[in-house]
């Protein structure tokens, strides 16, 4: 027996001996996922955590108390039956485990990696509550990833049953997490489904935004291929709002349309010098690196700045992704400039920690006021001002206030603006009868995701503003239920 097999049989033995008491379960420390060494990983784009093996997964699964009330289920935007899938892992029934997850989540390999579990299922986990630390909660996300990866390693993915054809057609605009979820749930009902994707590859933000080292693109492609095997038609290079309007999709005999076009419009800071060469939006930087694989230039054709000193502005996950990407592209120094303190950073703790481990230098309570350039139009420095925190603002976070006279400069050759995205205006602009709010987000009913236009549903970031993959999927699930109902009854 290999070392691993011995260890795995050990875990099984413990289980078989006797049912553990809750007290014993609470004594097991959370199982860490092995990771690439920070010094190594900043020289490659491979995924940072390796994932659990069977032994580690079973040990972690043992920590679950199998609560009757299971608050974790309600904590999950797609309401995965978490205790059930965890129990299956403990029993070594991995096929049953992944099937349980897939009852409500079509992208488990993705969600297991990028969901903010610490704010959802793991936040309400009784284990974490008992141990008075959300970090001590059952590592539900890591277990989900284990089950999903196990299935992929088997090479055979079980296809859900597709009901007989209904003769109805649904158009899905955008192949991000919301659109993919709707596609699966609507297709299962027997409707014909076409996904229209503007870019040359499907996946939306999973493909262009989230870096390879957090979410390998092969996983996204596999999930999309599974949808295609279910009979979903995918049309890339189709910009809805340009090649066809929403009304034209109805003329093309689609019976319902789902708009999931995301929050892809980058916000800039509107400070002097922002159009200097070397100043990127995070969207552009990440799209070049991820979707266009600029990290392989010149083997691939899309260029990206070769940087020495990079400043990233923002404190969210996208800022962390951009900073960590810059390191992997060879930057000597990466400064993350954020105007509030670490506590207010919207990024996941894990992402902040990873960035720090890798050597990203945090410049907190500082804000850029202008970009300084040379005569050829290249950025050479940024001028920042120090901030202090005042009273809480509308977002509940303490408002940063500039400290007069505290300006200073940082020498940089590349800047990445990661202060957020607005919703993509292409569809709303060309479909005036779809109502939007003052931020340009599409207005949709929170339960049915119906828009103001009959037959048109919307969900994900185009409705939520820049949010998360799982919230987009949660809306996608609700929208699919409503679309299926609408196609059955014809009632709006």
């Amino acid at each position, binding site marked *: 027996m290999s070392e691993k097999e011995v260890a795995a049989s050990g875990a099984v033995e413990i289980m078989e001996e006797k049912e553990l008491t809750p007290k014993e379960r609470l004594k097991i420390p959370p199982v860490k996922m092995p990771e690439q060494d920070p010094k190594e990983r900043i020289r490659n784009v491979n995924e940072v955590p390796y994932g659990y093996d069977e032994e580690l997964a079973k040990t972690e699964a043992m920590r679950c108390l199998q609560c009757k009330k299971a608050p974790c289920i309600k904590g999950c935007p797609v309401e995965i039956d978490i205790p059930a899938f965890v129990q299956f892992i403990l029993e070594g029934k991995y096929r049953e485990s992944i099937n349980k997850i897939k009852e409500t989540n079509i992208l488990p390999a993705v969600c297991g990696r990028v969901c903010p579990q610490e704010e959802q299922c793991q936040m309400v986990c009784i284990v974490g509550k008992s141990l008075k630390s959300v970090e001590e909660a059952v590592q539900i996300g890591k277990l989900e990833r284990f089950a999903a990866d196990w299935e992929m390693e088997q090479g055979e993915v079980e296809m859900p049953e597709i009901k007989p054809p209904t003769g109805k057609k649904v158009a899905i605009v955008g192949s991000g997490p919301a659109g993919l979820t709707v596609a699966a749930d609507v297709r299962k009902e027997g409707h014909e489904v076409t996904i229209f994707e*503007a*870019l*040359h590859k499907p996946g939306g933000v999973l493909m*262009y935004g989230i870096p390879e080292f957090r979410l390998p693109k092969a996983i996204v492609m596999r999930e999309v291929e599974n949808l295609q095997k279910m009979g979903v038609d995918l049309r*890339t*290079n*189709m*910009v809805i709002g*340009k*090649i*066809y309007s929403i009304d034209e999709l109805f003329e093309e005999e689609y019976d319902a349309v789902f708009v999931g076009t995301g929050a*892809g*419009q*980058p916000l*800039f800071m*509107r400070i002097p010098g*922002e*159009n200097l*060469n*070397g100043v*990127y*939006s995070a*969207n*552009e930087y990440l*799209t*070049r690196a991820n979707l*266009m*694989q600029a990290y*392989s*230039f*010149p*083997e*691939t*054709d*899309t*260029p990206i700045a070769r940087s020495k000193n990079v400043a990233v502005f923002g404190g969210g996950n996208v800022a962390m992704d951009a900073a960590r990407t810059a390191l992997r592209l060879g930057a000597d120094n990466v400064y993350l400039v954020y105007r509030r303190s670490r506590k207010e950073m919207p990024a996941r703790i894990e992402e902040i920690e990873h960035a720090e481990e890798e050597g990203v230098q945090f410049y907190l309570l500082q804000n850029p006021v202008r970009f300084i350039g040379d005569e*050829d*139009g290249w950025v050479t420095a940024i001028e920042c001002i120090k901030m202090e925190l005042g009273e809480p603002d509308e977002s509940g976070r303490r408002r940063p206030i500039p400290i007069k006279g505290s300006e200073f400069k940082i020498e940089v050759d590349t800047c990445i603006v990661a202060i957020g995205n607005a919703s*993509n*205006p*292409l569809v709303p602009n060309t479909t005036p009868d779809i109502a939007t709010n003052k931020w340009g987000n599409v207005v949709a009913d929170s339960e049915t995701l119906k828009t103001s236009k009959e037959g048109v549903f919307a969900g994900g970031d185009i409705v939520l503003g820049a949010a998360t993959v799982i919230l987009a999927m949660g809306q996608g699930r609700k929208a699919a239920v409503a679309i299926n109902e609408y196609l059955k009854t014809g009632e709006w």
Partner: protein
Amino acid sequence: MNKILEKEFITSDVFRMRVEAPEIARKRKAGQFIILRTCDEGERIPLTIADANAEEGWLELVVQIVGKTTKALSLLEAGDSLCDLVGPLGRPTHIELYGTVVIIGGGIGIAPSYPIVQAMKAAGNHMISILGGRTKELVIMEDKMRATSDRVVITTDDGTYGMKGLVTDALQRLIDEGVKIDLVVAIGPPIMMKFVSLMTKKYDIPTLVSLNTIMVDGTGMCGACRVSVGGETKFVCVDGPEFDGHKVDFDEMMKRLRMYEEHEKESMERFASK
């Protein structure tokens, strides 16, 4: 997959390519553009549409070889396919009856001028076309432009064809002749558009320019194409490609176009050595 139907070289580094694209051919309007990739490792490059036929389902591109991707594109033959083609992108030219419209096409910029001349002519405008090139062979699409314009003026830098001089010299001559110009549309190298705009500003003639900046997605998602127009940042891909020439910061735009000069050179050399 979009099949290439025809390809021919117009000069040693300019070629015309007819591509199967029935949906785009039906939908595109004057002033719009496409983005294509030639291979899976390829970059996305924006190209203007020189002509299209909705019935026959094709687009025509006129391309100048300037880098690796355009070089690779030039090596494809009829029967080959493009890896990706997306469009139509950008806002169409605003077509209405202005009166007399002067369209100025410089070099490869003559190609996207042609659909605009067609549309403006159809709207009842008196069309004067100024076609400029460094030398005779770079004055392309002359027959098509003559067939749709009321008057054509040709300029070459070296005097090998038409009047010797720049397109601005031809424009100055029209103004001196007393032609009442209601709109100028200039498409060509940034430096040409800059000087046309400076001249028309002096005479208070409304001027549109069509910008061809660096882009990635072409749908407003990345901001690579941003330009300053009247002090405001605009995205060429979704707010343009046409802007008021009197408001565009051409100097900034020209600097931004050089952002990847080193990469482009390296990529081209690597490709040539293969």
